[in-house]
């Protein structure tokens, strides 16, 4: 089938790569995810004295010394892109035949950079920005400029993998990973490209980033034991667990994939998006944007809600998110909402923030491939206000033809993706 709705190209997936706190690569991640293992652990990267939250799903097995969140994000993005391109067997080394869409955490000068500049300023006592500026003007810190530009991660990846055109770095907060995929789908549907490399990456577990979320009361403080902290859809859920990770997809037009004999790993059938104008961190109480976004994705896929067999939710485990996501899901799916399996990967890997949409898309594709549902772990105290089949605690087999993945973010961002096992 060459074309879908309105004669546009059908977009399929031919390559996937993933890293989470569970490990590197699809095989390791899928085995642990379906075994109900948690990647959440006590933070050792920096001192946790004085912090209310002392746990995270950081990726400590990718060494970055001295630590820099953007550097870790770039290294993980490189690893997952290599895995995805290898699986897709597309292009040639350093010559990917399409554009790059990257979901990446906002880049900034980090404390280690500031410390280096402060030391370099030679200030004896009080250190101010005047002193830092004197150091930066010395010309000895060019590396900080390049590392701390927003464009730097995408530029380095584009250079390494030889993607075509200007690489786009997108942020829709915790929906970024899904937005990067949506941009790739749209570019292929427009006929601009036959293939696109879509990556989400986030290495934000540093003191200031953790404290920012902590000050917004978004994080779980159930530090003991760390593996039990993330409790999506449970009555005693108390926030999300910050985590790191990355994932990559090779998207391709169906025609291009068939023409070169590539194995089709799934279909990116539909994208939905709607912004919420209610509040900076909270959804409109009527769930309008969440409902609209899910409906748009299903409609865009040429399906109806009855066709959806599984939902990979945003499912952060904050009191607010899970309540509103239930409202959205129950509004769209009606009575069926109670019986559609919906399981949160974040119960095991935590919230990978800018990468989450991409990470969870790869897990949803693996769910479609293996016809097996990863569980929602730590589901000990059901919330009677959220009567859903969360695939509690233990994975199980199921027939899944079409799946929905939700991503929501601060700033009123809502993106839903629909994936299918095979082209319609």
């Amino acid at each position, binding site marked *: 089938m060459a074309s879908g709705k309105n004669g546009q190209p059908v977009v399929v997936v031919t390559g996937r790569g993933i890293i989470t706190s569970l490990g590197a690569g699809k095989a390791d991640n899928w085995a642990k995810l379906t075994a109900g293992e948690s990647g959440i652990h006590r933070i050792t990267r920096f001192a946790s*004295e004085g912090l209310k939250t002392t746990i995270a799903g950081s990726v400590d097995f990718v060494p970055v010394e001295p630590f820099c969140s953007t550097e870790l994000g770039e290294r993980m993005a490189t690893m997952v892109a290599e895995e995805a391109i290898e699986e897709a067997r597309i292009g040639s080394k350093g010559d990917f035949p399409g554009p790059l869409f990257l979901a990446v955490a906002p880049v900034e000068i980090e404390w280690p950079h500031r410390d280096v500049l402060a030391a370099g300023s030679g200030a004896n006592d009080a250190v101010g920005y005047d002193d830092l500026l004197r150091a930066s*003007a010395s010309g000895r810190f060019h590396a900080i400029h390049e590392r*701390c530009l927003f464009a730097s991660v995408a530029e380095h990846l584009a250079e390494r993998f030889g993607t075509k055109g200007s690489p786009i770095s997108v942020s829709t907060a915790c929906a970024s990973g899904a937005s990067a995929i949506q941009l790739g789908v749209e570019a292929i549907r427009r006929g601009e490209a036959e293939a696109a490399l879509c990556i989400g990456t986030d290495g934000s577990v540093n003191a200031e980033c953790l*404290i920012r979320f902590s000050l917004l009361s978004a994080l779980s403080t159930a530090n003991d034991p760390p593996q039990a902290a993330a409790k999506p859809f449970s009555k005693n859920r108390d926030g999300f667990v910050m985590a790191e990770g990355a994932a990559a997809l090779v998207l391709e037009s169906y025609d291009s994939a068939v023409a070169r004999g590539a194995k089709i790993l799934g279909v990116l059938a539909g994208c939905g998006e709607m912004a919420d104008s209610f509040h900076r961190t909270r959804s409109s109480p009527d769930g309008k944007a969440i409902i609209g976004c899910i409906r748009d994705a299903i409609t865009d896929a040429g399906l109806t809600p009855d066709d959806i067999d599984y939902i990979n939710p945003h499912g952060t485990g904050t009191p607010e998110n899970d309540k509103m996501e239930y409202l959205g899901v129950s509004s769209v799916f009606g009575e069926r909402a109670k019986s559609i399996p919906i399981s949160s990967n974040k119960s095991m890997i935590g919230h990978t923030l800018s990468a989450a949409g991409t990470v969870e898309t790869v897990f949803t594709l693996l769910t479609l491939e293996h016809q097996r549902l990863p569980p929602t772990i730590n589901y000990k105290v059901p919330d009677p206000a959220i009567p859903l089949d969360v695939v509690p605690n233990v994975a199980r087999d199921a027939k899944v033809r079409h799946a929905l993945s939700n991503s929501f973010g601060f700033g009123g961002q809502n993106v839903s993706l629909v994936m299918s096992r095979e082209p319609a």
Partner: protein
Amino acid sequence: MADAPREAWITGIGIVSCLGEGADAHWQGLAERRIKVDAETFAPYLVHPLAPLDLDKQIPKKGDQRQMEPWQRIGTYAAGLALADAGVKGNAELLARMDMIVAAGGGERDVAVDAAILTNKPKAANPEAFLNERLMSDLRPTLFLAQLSNLLAGNISIVHGVTGSSRTFMGEEAAGVDAVRIALARIAAGQSELALVGGSHNGEREDLLLLYDSGGHMLRGAFQPVWERAKGMVLGSLGAFLVLEARGHAEARNAKPLARLSGVLSERSGRAAGAIPAALARMWQRLVPPPVPAGIAVISGATGAQPATGEERAWLKTLPDVPVRATSSILGHGFEPQFAMNIALAALALGREKLFPAVDSSGVEREYEGPLERVAVTAVGHWRGEGMALIEAVT
């Protein structure tokens, strides 16, 4: 497959800078070659400071204003101007299906908190624990939301009700080019009917000077227009938004075009020597196939950084008959919104059927009193990214 590309019109612009707010203030300032530079506040660095805004006019709730840092206020204000200019402000039905792409950096740091930590951390018994303690107690809980890149878009949704879609592109100048490129491509392909695209930048920030001067890119000392500098950027505070609309959509609601956005291209040249002129030449060839038409001008996004600006200058020499204006000489350099700003100024000039005066004694810019029918806007990022747009009069 896809139908023929659909025509996209610019039906609204919203701009703020050191020249003030809106079309008339900018046209007048450009006509007077009014260069407003503050050489004191951040000496030896210079800045083109934002003209005072009456924020209540576009951000009526004080509570909303308090939730934002200046970069978000500038952008939310400019977005409101653009929506009003296009006649869609307050039109809930249109705003609910309006697409939005914002090009954004990050927000202001609390420099007092940073300085206190840098001063006292080395003396602390446990520096890491000290950092935790100070950040936990000194950071305002809502500061994070004022720093997050996508929260300019979030604030525009909240204040103005734009909710069809919301995407934020990051990556300095290139993000500003690609935001407009993707918004146009979606309209041309029928993926979007009506879009708000642009960004904002607060140039009055020591944390940004720190970033850019660590790369050796800031002008220090005496002010010069951009082509006259050996090297160096001067930051400006800018907000710039465009309302782009499918021609059919605009005609159906009787919206007047300010200009046609005929094409936007971007490249990643990689910056080997000579790569920038080659990229600019390729984009020019595609947007303005030879022979070079009469009544065309270039509005350049030259930053003053080298080698970027020198290489752009070398390319401009290949078009000796085309008048050039670099707006950063007057507005300062604003990174993400610079491209949208220059497209807006191109639309302004086309509407007035004349180019604004030159600000340059180095020979790149020359006076031009002839007719103006189309403008090519260039963007050569201070570090990476090249882009070009063609804006044409709708006759």
